């Protein structure tokens, strides 16, 4: 069965609207784009033109990728990279596709066929699939690749295979336990998965990085730490951790088998370990090979320097897919009182949080859990205020009703990084207006998730973010954040620790809906239902603001692979001889 998802309200194409107030920044091309009605709105004058064959794309990056091994890595940055070197059964559509949120076939000929009971999914592989060493990719290699997810040390990436696919309780991956019996490979082209329970979103699960195929018995221990076996259009030429990744063409990749990747450039050169400020300076200067450079989000301080028209042509501005929110721990007094939580929802000055994050160019104020660019978004604002600066009167009234007219004290878990600190301070200041005194519990970045994900250690509130694992549905937004039965001792993501039977059953209902459109409507309504309880305060959706080099084109957003950022698969150079 093929899933079709209704188009989102806003396309992740270039949007000029946010610049309206910055006079010089109004893009010349916005007349043609805007609104998202046109399917080709994702190009501007500076980024026009089809990518030509050849050249090397330069990627300037601060941090190294987490892991080259797709069973280990799982985040917006590395997932995007994986698509250059690995293929999976399915994959999110290219950023340039009509609906980039859609899940489309990749190694498989379609997005899978489900049995009537919803428990068995069957995929058929395309012809002509090969690894970079020329060996054919068959169902055995796909099975082997997936089964690595069960290895306790290697399978630390995407959890969905383990959560959804049925497996023996003591199964520990191919190296320790051998073949996984619940994945069948009746012939070289067919692979059959047996699930624990029906999971209509299984095609999205099959797009997770750990569905990449690997030669049987490869990849034990640290084998894939510094080298890989590629199935995508590029393969690893050089890797110096923390400093350089060089990709060259995988000659055994057949473009005829791949509808997603255009793979126009001859290679990719990742320069890692660069300071964010250095990256911005280089992008601004655009010297030498930096005309072919792409990078992540610009720094807030850089935005003020983009008033020069020579930059505005190249500037890319997309809505994000990750919600920044403040979780309110409903097990703590007085946050167990819904009126107090609603009061906080009213009191928070979201505009101040937005400014601390980098202002209107880097973030949109959020009033919902599901971001506008993710399927299932419903537009509502339960706690509105003028200019999003907070409604102090309403908040005070609610506090008085709850018996806290004089306010109270609460502790906010925070990380001491400039942006996160500014967000926390903005919340602290705005809550002070209604008498709520916020003290900080600063936590080292590396320990932050461990702390807030452990209910025993968690304090009253914490500011964090959530990105959907795929943008085709909100099934990876609402359940992890609000399903009371998913609260665990460690690694908990339901920060509000809300356990409401009505919400729980509504989640079950929504998960069972097989019609995507109906499911999305259900998620949107559920979002509203949850926020009436105010277990979290949605704060922002951080945007994507990029400044690609002037020779770069094919710049499209991918909500599914790159959490709203630049989709590498379409990127190419206008003139390969440059730089």
């Amino acid at each position, binding site marked *: 069965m093929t899933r079709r998802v209704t188009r989102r309200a806003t396309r992740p194409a270039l949007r000029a609207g946010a610049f309206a107030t910055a006079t010089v920044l109004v893009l010349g091309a916005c007349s043609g784009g805007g609104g998202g009605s046109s399917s080709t709105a994702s190009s501007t004058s500076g980024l026009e033109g089809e990518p030509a064959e050849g050249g090397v794309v330069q990627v300037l990056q601060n941090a190294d990728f987490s892991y080259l091994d797709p069973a280990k890595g799982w985040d917006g940055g590395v997932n995007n990279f994986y698509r250059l070197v690995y293929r999976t059964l399915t994959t999110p559509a290219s950023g340039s596709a009509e609906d980039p949120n859609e899940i489309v076939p990749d190694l498989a000929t379609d997005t899978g066929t489900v049995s009537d009971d919803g428990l068995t999914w069957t995929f058929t592989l395309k012809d002509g699939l090969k690894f970079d060493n020329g060996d054919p990719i068959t169902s055995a290699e796909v099975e082997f690749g997936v089964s690595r997810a069960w290895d306790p040390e290697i399978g630390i990436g995407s959890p969905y295979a383990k959560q959804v696919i049925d497996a023996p309780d003591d199964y520990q991956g191919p190296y320790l336990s051998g073949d996984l019996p619940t994945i069948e490979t009746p012939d070289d082209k067919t692979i059959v998965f047996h699930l624990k329970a029906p999971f209509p979103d299984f095609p999205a699960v099959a797009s997770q990085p750990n569905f990449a195929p690997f030669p049987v018995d490869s990849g034990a221990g640290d084998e894939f730490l510094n080298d890989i076996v590629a199935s995508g259009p590029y393969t690893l030429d050089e890797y110096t951790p923390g400093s350089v990744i060089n990709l060259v063409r995988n000659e055994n990749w057949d473009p005829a088998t791949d509808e997603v990747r255009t793979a126009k450039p001859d290679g990719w050169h990742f320069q890692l370990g660069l300071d964010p400020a250095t990256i911005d300076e280089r992008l601004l200067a655009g010297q030498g090979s930096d005309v072919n450079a792409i990078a992540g989000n610009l720094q807030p301080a850089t935005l003020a320097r983009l008033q020069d028209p020579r930059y505005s042509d190249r500037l890319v501005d997309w809505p994000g897919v990750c919600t920044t929110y403040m979780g309110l721990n409903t097990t703590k007094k007085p946050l167990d009182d819904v009126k107090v939580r609603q009061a906080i929802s009213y009191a928070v000055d979201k*505009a101040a949080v937005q400014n601390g994050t980098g202002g*209107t160019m880097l973030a949109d104020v959020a009033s919902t859990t599901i971001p506008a660019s993710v399927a299932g978004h419903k537009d509502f604002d339960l706690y509105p205020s003028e200019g999003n600066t907070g409604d102090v009167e309403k908040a005070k009234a609610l506090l008085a009703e709850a018996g806290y007219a004089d306010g109270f004290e609460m502790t906010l878990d925070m990380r001491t990084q400039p942006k996160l*600190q500014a967000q926390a301070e*903005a919340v602290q200041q705005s809550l002070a207006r209604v008498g709520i005194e916020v003290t900080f519990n*600063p*936590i080292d970045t590396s320990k932050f998730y461990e702390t807030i994900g452990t209910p025993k250690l968690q304090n009253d509130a914490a500011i964090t973010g959530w990105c959907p694992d795929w943008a085709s549905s909100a099934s990876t937004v609402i359940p992890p954040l609000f399903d009371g039965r998913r609260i665990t001792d460690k690694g908990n993501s339901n920060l509000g620790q809300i356990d409401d039977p009505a919400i729980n059953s509504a989640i079950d209902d929504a998960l069972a809906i097989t019609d995507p459109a109906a499911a999305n409507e259900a998620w949107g309504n559920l979002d509203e239902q949850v926020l009436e309880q105010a277990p979290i305060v949605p704060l922002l959706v951080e945007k994507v603001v990029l400044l690609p080099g002037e020779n770069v084109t094919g710049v499209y957003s991918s909500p599914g692979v790159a959490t709203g950022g630049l989709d590498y698969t379409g990127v190419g150079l206008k003139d390969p001889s440059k730089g």
Partner: protein
Amino acid sequence: MTISMTTLEAETGGAPSVDAAPPAPRQGVWHHLLRNRGAVLALSYIALVALLAVAAPLVVKLSGWGPYEFDQAAIDPNLGGLPIGPLGGISAEHWFGVEPGTGRDLFARIVYGARTSMLIALAATTLTTLLGVLFGLLAGYHGGKVDQVVSRVMDFLMAFPALIFMIAILSALPASNRAPLLVLVISVFGWPYLARVVRGQTMTLTQREFVEAARASGASGWRIVVLEILPNLRSTIIVMTTLAVPGYIGTEAGLSFLGVGVVPPTPSWGQMIAQSMSWYAVDPMYFLLPGTFLFLLVLSFTVLGDRLKDVVDAGERR
């Protein structure tokens, strides 16, 4: 560099010798200091910063903005939160302009930052001096095994890559109350530099006639140390301590700069400079102001220490 302990290392070579006459009377030292223009300027600036630090709540009442108050009207949300107006938003409203992104008043943050700098530096100085004098006296007076142990501990601490270790240990420790931790960590690595000098001078003094005389008359060990030896070390301790203060101010700022200093939203100059780093191109005032305040404070203590040393040395030569 303000963080390296070698600043102290270099100065110990020039520490006043004890062989000369008893220390110049305090009055004399003040008298000489107040006649030196550099010393007076340095003292005035230190007094000003100390006054700002002590009276911070009053001062910000005068200036109108507290250190934590956001002023959204002072920044431009469409330009990444850049302060509105020239020179980082300097105006009658905000005397030193505002912080990008939040619009917090820089003057108030600098005034409160002075509290952090002064408090930590002075606390660290006090603790370091106590430890340094105590262990220096102990090792120098007792000699033998005690000296062996103290000296080995000092060697060990001085061989340690102090800055790297301070950063590492502070980042690993719980962040909730960093100020006492900062003081402790700075002092633990700081005292050997004073103790080494005190130890050497105590050893010399212990051989001197008046100490031997006191000992012969049956005075107890501590009595001799406190009444006979300590007064003779006074000028050394004062000079070395004054020269160490700028090091501690710099270290606190440096650690805050690297993100392991005091916890926000408490302002600290080092932290402000760290945050200003990404803004230096568009809002240079953001780093220039706290940077200048920090520079002048370190400079003042250095000048004061230098002059004090000159005066004490000259007193001893007379």
